[in-house]
């Protein structure tokens, strides 16, 4: 089962990367902006990974060791997850067509839900691994902050829409 997860994930990852590049090549997608967004999102993902390393180190210090393999799995999840997510956000922000306003709000909602769900999953993994349910409570502040940011952004957008109209 573990082998399936590790090597199946690797296989799916490589297949996704290969077919993604093949599809992008069809409409000149393999250009310098793609290289820029890939490098930038990889750079951003390292900040999240550093934060995750500190969280795991803190758990170790406070006597709540998660073990080597789960810790590596969490770090891999955070690195790849934040890389993919930051690439997605970067792409959406840079390539948003100013003439086409449809889908902008939907995209923000999807991003917000993805961030919130990722945080919940991360804290759920930590609490499951440590057997300490109170780690789930630690997910409340970042999730609430996410909801607050999203709500204020939508309000700001609605206000500017009214002014423009």
């Amino acid at each position, binding site marked *: 089962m573990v082998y399936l997860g590790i090597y199946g994930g690797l296989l799916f990852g490589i297949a996704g990367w290969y077919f993604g590049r093949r599809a992008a090549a069809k409409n*000149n*997608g393999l*250009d*310098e*902006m793609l290289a*820029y967004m890939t490098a930038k999102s990889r750079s951003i993902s390292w900040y999240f990974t550093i934060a995750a390393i500190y969280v795991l180190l803190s758990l170790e210090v406070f006597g709540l060791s998660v073990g080597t393999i789960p810790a590596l799995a969490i770090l891999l999840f955070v690195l790849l997850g934040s890389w993919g997510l930051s690439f997605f956000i970067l792409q959406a922000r840079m390539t948003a067509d100013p003439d086409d306003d449809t889908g902008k709000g939907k995209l923000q909602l999807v991003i917000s839900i993805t961030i919130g769900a990722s945080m919940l999953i991360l804290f759920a993994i930590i609490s499951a691994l440590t057997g300490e349910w109170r780690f789930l409570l630690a997910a409340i502040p970042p999730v609430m902050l996410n909801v607050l940011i999203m709500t204020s952004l939508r309000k700001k957008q609605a206000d500017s829409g009214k002014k423009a109209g």
Partner: protein
Amino acid sequence: MTQEQLGEIIGVSRQSVIAIETMKYNPSLELAFRIAKAFRMQIEDVFVFEEKEEK
């Protein structure tokens, strides 16, 4: 000329053309020259350097 057509000529995606147009992405010097060439113009006629205001 449409964004798609320009993208085909200079070898980038339509999304990249949008990002350059909306100033979300600064193209490399090589790409900037290719864009200018596509319009048969000088690079300084297409791109104008604007210094960012210090906050």
